[in-house]
């Protein structure tokens, strides 16, 4: 039952694979799981109205091998853009509702008066190429209307059934507005209809100045409403967690960006800071060599922590580049798992023509491993437009 979209798209993509055809193959090997991974990607554009895309992979971790499809989709659109559709395996995002990966179909129609209607139906994707359950399905729709040239507002509804049982039924409301050339605002709200209550709210508003962009954000999430409705843990009530704050992105110098994120988290009755300071310095005008540094203070209750991260990418002659990334996390409380967790990676990359290759050494200490060193290798080849 779940294989039919794959077959249809495989046939259709052959027809869509006219120029430009892009192919890509990547192989990743690491001493940590997954031990090996091969990814094949193909994109075919048959003009502006029809395209096909597929990403398949095979990998092995320890003694287990697996092959799966990440994306296999055919996209079609009428010349005027009034109608658009997708068929196959893809991620569907319907307004304020959570993204869902399905094997199915989705369509969008632009009606007069600035009204958009979109809908999808299909089988929710689970790990592996097949599922033993016969009555898994998901369907949803959204209707949206543009508000002049300012923005749009939309209402979405989706229902998901797992093995015939109601797993999720949500109503979403989203709105976005470009209030001026410099001001944006957007909001979304997801309401759980199975166990009535607000599942998730997210609000963001930004102002873009000449050198500084500021953003105010707020989110509210109730974990019990994000679980499948069949879970016993959905009956425990609404104890939402909130996260709010402001972000300022400052172009301090032509090559230097400084980002400050000053926020707070509230979980149950506890309020804790969530602060991040970042800087990125481009070492040349095109940014081929860059440095970044970040300081963070985050967590909630007895799970607060402080962290620092630094990364660098230095371009070398002969299409080579050396990169390094370092992170140090210090937990406030020792739970018998240690408090200081460093992580580091150093890599040498080569990118020339259609070829890409990289090798890296990764070292870390974590609650799981007192110390660990892994080696990673990657080889990629592109054909067609990169």
């Amino acid at each position, binding site marked *: 039952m779940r294989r039919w979209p794959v077959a249809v798209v495989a046939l259709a993509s052959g027809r869509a694979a006219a120029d430009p055809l892009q192919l890509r193959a990547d192989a990743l090997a690491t001493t940590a799981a*997954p031990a090996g991974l091969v990814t094949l990607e193909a994109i075919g554009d048959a003009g502006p109205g029809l395209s096909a895309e597929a990403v398949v992979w095979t990998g092995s971790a320890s003694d287990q091998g697996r092959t799966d499809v990440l*994306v296999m989709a055919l*996209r079609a659109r009428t010349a005027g853009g009034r109608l658009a559709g997708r068929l196959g395996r893809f991620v569907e995002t319907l307004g304020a509702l959570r993204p869902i990966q399905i094997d199915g179909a989705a369509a969008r129609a632009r009606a007069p008066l600035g009204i958009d209607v979109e809908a999808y139906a299909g089988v929710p994707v689970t790990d592996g190429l097949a599922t033993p359950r016969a009555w898994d399905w998901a369907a949803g729709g959204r209707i949206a209307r543009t508000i002049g040239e300012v923005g749009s507002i939309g209402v979405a509804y989706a229902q998901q059934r797992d093995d015939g049982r109601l797993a999720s039924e949500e109503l979403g409301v989203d709105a976005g507005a470009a209030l001026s050339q410099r001001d944006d605002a957007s909001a979304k709200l997801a309401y759980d209809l199975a166990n009535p209550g607000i599942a998730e709210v997210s609000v*963001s508003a930004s102002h873009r100045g000449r050198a500084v962009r500021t953003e105010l954000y707020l989110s509210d999430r109730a974990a*019990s409403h994000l679980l499948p409705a069949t*879970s016993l843990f*959905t009956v425990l009530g609404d104890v939402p967690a909130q996260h709010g704050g402001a972000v300022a992105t400052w172009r301090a110098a032509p090559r230097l960006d400084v980002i400050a994120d000053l926020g707070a988290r509230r979980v149950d009755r506890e309020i804790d800071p969530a602060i991040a300071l970042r800087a990125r310095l481009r070492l040349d005008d095109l940014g081929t060599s860059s440095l970044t540094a970040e300081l963070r203070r985050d967590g909630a209750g007895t799970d607060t922590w402080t962290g620092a991260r630094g990364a660098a990418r230095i371009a070398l002659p002969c299409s080579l580049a050396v990169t390094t990334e370092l992170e140090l996390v210090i937990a406030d409380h020792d739970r018998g798992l240690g408090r200081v967790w460093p992580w580091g990676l150093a890599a040498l990359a080569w990118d020339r023509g259609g070829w890409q290759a*990289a090798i890296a050494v990764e070292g*870390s200490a974590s609650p799981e491993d007192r110390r660990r060193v892994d080696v990673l290798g990657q080889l990629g080849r592109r054909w067609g437009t990169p």
Partner: protein
Amino acid sequence: MTRTAIALTCLLLAACAGVLGLSRGGPQPFPHRAHATAGVACTRCHAGLDASPGALHIPDDAACATCHPKPHDARPCLSCHAAAGALAELAEARDHLVFDHQQHTAPTRGDCMRCHTGIAEGDDHLRPPMATCFRCHAHDAARDARRCEACHRGLMETQLLPESHLAHDGDWMREHGARAASSGDLCQTCHREAFCADCHGKTVPALPATRRFADPFAASVHRAGFTARHALEARAQPGACATCHAPARCVACHTSRGITGDGRRSPHPPGWVGPAAADNEHGRQARRDPAACASCHDGAGQALCVGCHKVGGVGGTPHPPGWSSKLPLAALPCRLCHPVGRAP
């Protein structure tokens, strides 16, 4: 002390001015302003605007030599008198924009600065912003229908970032969720299916941070040492994991890694479950983050809970005051505690 600090700061800035891009030791933007004020018409140097739409119309050394017959350097003029990346930016514009100078010279009466507004101020970016096009062209229908290909060629390959609306600045990884809700179709004009699926797909083999390990600036969730801090991040954001991962994901991974599973001791601290109210920390924690409980106890593990939390059981009702559900008692999970036909 303050003077010393100011002096040190100035000294540091001066020392780093080149790195920060505050001073330029390399190629300089072309002095368009000087030429314009000297009365040099744009088309005198940028010849052929009316004839060859596919060309860049960049003047060569011979064009410069008509006024500057004695070059002060043997190198090509534009190797120094053009901002770094400016020529590459123009070539990219020619390849990816549906545009023809020929059609614009007559309507603008040869006034190039009607579109290239910043050029006289030494703007490095010779390509006008999109808003400039919209001053004259009513592309509302194409814009509303997301028919970007009317002006842009190969938008998915150019990797341009929006300059004004939906600017991918700050913490875009967090922000994109709220923005994409009402602009999903706009996102699809630049991003292919795999871009979303790389993080939101259930069949992701490895996240971008792993697959592109040699690029520390690649956008990705769970980067760097996330494995070490994931428990802290999960507890600080109840439900965040459940927005992408199935509840069973935690126990599946922990079991495969031998962290939890059969025969291992309980991960819960003393006082987690007990006869006295003070010994029932699990209730408070479960309300705070039920997704964390579900990550181990969902499915068959729910029997552990309903052993006490059932009608007439010692655990009492787990429902908070005013709780309601539209599910029938015969449906899961109600029937675990409420046998069909029996009043709650």
